[in-house]
């Protein structure tokens, strides 16, 4: 071994891998299914936002024209009071998407703290927290919701929190396993040895690294909460009249199935589209993350 190093010794930096860093987002956003899903979600959100300015009033009655099929004047048709269905779907979207979004954020925050506490503390804390999560997942959702609605009522905030809470069990499990696998990696050991405080390692280093997988989960959570809200509203446990969500619209349309097939079909279609699009966003993110990890 010699001190003088011939030039051939110089270590060259490897070529930048083509699929590094910021490319991840770009690769995600250029996938055709992702583009399609974003278009669907975008249209639904924009409709909900701009509804007051461009659409009929959702409460304007046009009784002679009730149960009308789709036409130029009413693209989605009309309901039993002659109200414009497109406008009602758009307005209902404000409630449905709003509840879904709020619930997802709540589930993310609660689930992440829950799972992280379990993973970071370990031992009996872990056991207790995870058994609670498993118990929560074992109870049928409708039964759970029934109890909660009976206890807290079915106003918007309660709906949001209940939906979020129901989803936080699974999120907690996912957060726990993500944090656990990070905590096992050598860099955490290295940071501990450097003297970085535990909380700083958890929140400054580990949490950001688990975010991608948590984001993928929260996109799936959004889809689940759209469905949960629709389910609860459909069985009458959710949003109460006169407020309308996609679920309550589907419920109303269902009871008028024989007058107009369009009435239940339109909200159902929107629910299916929204759930499919959100699921696509989540699963595609998992695909991209999985590829970049391997």
């Amino acid at each position: 071994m010699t001190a003088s190093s011939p030039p051939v010794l110089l270590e060259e930096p490897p070529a930048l891998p083509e699929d590094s860093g910021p490319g991840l987002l770009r690769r995600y956003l250029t996938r055709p299914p992702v583009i399609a899903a974003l278009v669907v979600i975008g249209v639904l959100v924009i409709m909900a936002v701009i509804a007051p300015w461009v659409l009929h009033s959702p409460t304007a009655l046009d009784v002679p024209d009730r149960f009308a099929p789709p036409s130029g004047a009413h693209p989605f048709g009309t309901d039993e009071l002659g109200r414009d269905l497109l406008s009602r779907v758009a307005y209902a979207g404000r409630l449905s998407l709003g509840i879904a979004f709020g619930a997802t954020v709540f589930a993310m925050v609660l689930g992440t703290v829950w799972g992280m506490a379990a993973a970071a503390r370990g031992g009996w804390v872990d056991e207790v927290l995870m058994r609670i999560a498993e118990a929560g997942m074992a109870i049928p959702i409708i039964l759970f919701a029934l109890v909660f609605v009976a206890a807290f009522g079915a106003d918007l905030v309660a709906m949001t929190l209940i939906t979020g809470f129901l989803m936080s069990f699974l999120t907690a499990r996912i957060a726990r396993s993500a944090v656990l696998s990070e905590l096992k990696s050598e860099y955490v050991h290295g940071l501990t040895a450097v003297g970085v405080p535990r909380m700083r390692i958890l929140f400054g280093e580990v949490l950001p690294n688990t975010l991608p997988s948590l984001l993928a989960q929260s996109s799936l959570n959004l889809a689940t909460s759209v469905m949960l809200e629709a389910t609860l509203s459909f069985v009458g446990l959710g949003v109460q009249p006169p407020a309308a969500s996609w679920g309550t619209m589907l419920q109303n349309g269902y009871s008028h199935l024989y007058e107009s097939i369009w009435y239940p079909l339109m909200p159902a279609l929107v629910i299916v589209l929204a759930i499919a699009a959100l699921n696509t966003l989540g699963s595609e993110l998992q695909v991209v993350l999985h590829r970049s990890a391997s």
Partner: protein
Amino acid sequence: MTEPLLRISELRIGVRTANAVRPLVEGVDLAIEPGQRAALVGESGSGKTLTALSVMRLNPPPTLVTGGRIELASKDIATATERDMVGLRGAEMAMIYQDPLSSLNPVRTVGHQLVEAIRAHTTIRARAAKRRAVDLLGEVGVPDPVTRIDDYPHQFSGGMRQRVMIAMAVSCSPSLLIADEPTTALDVTTQARILDLLVDLSDQRGMAVLFITHDLAIASGFCERINVMRHGKLVEHGKMGTVLAAPAHPYTRTLLDAVITLDAQPRTAAVEPSDADGPLVEARDVVRTFGRSVRAVDGVSLSIPRGGTFGLVGESGSGKSTLAGLLLGLDRPESGSVRFAGTELATLSREALRARRRHMQVVLQDPIGSLNRRKTVAQIVALPLAVHDRMSRARRRDRVAELLDLVRLPKALLGRYPRELSGGQCQRVNIARAIALKPDFLVLDEAVSAVDVVIQAQILDLLGDLQDELGLTYLFVSHDLAVVRYMAPTIAVMYRGRIVEQGDRADIFRNPAHEYTRQLIDAIPAVELDGERVRR
């Protein structure tokens, strides 16, 4: 001259990217005669594994062979059908890998997997195949093969697992065995035994071996011919003796110089260690057990003077890393005491211990894994400064730049992520982070074990210079006795949780007192020429 068994000519391999094919291997020529052992030597990323995988036609997509010919026993691999290839793999050529654990199915017994390999190419009955499998296990040196055959891969040690892999590879008597760094993940003593086994098998069966390694010393004792690869090109090839005696290419010379043999002149520190204020680190009768029966550290005592380098050598599982963790206060002993600069670590509160961490730092084995993959080099190196020192942003930036200078990394790398660096560069980043707070004590826990020999030599140089410049005290932990000898004037040999021998390096090498130390010394690969050690 006999007809070569394997002939590779003008081989080109590329990787398909979005709009082009980037070349990785450019025009490699190689020939192996029947029964011959040939080495393919080069650093990681030089294309040696890719070349070998192409022979099996197993190169992973999106890599593809873009030109040249590969012929095995005059059969063209490129035009063979997939069915032909299935017949060739295993029967005509077989491969063993670096990591035997991940190459074996964890939920099947080794017997099941061996029988499967045997019956894939022969028509013998299950019972006969099992008898053959037992014979094979015995042949590759697995003790008590009749009972071990029903064990699962996790019940074997790393060396034994590699033996099982070898048994599987030779089960259908291939004429060519491709061995891709088969001993890199193993301890030195195990490595020596596996190499002996491969030599025996190759001699007895007349089996040719293509041996891939980054370590010239291992190749020199094992192979008759050598091929040196760098950046996808074959830079030198020929008879092992001829090439080693007079390397024509400067890179071959670099590889040769990087080998640390027992004849190497050990490094001497510029500053003599001083024991004036008592030892910097001192352990007395330290015990740490896991579970009920595993005594990972079993009554260890040692003392490291300020400014000195203390070498700790032992095989994996001997308790070296556990001991290092105890000395750093990352873990607490069940009994015994660990003192740092005179303070008993066990008496410190969590906060006091954390504050003390700035004086004792560690560099770990996995250069890339010990860095947070989502932080840039600048963020990684600045973190300890942010945690322990209150300083302005500008001041911190200057200090990070200074540290990069110290570990000889260009500032252009500041914004890069770990995966955009080579292994050697990552290890330099680890060292920069470790010395950021100007510690007194640095634990190097297998810090050069995961990098190529050439990089290892550079990192060792760097560590030596840093010690001289900064007056660091090192605990140098490694399984490689030659490297420990090179770095540390005082050496302790650890075996099954105990320090079986401790003292001056010259004494230990002159007359090793413990049987295990003798084994370690014998297992160190030397650069050999026709069985003779080449003095360098």
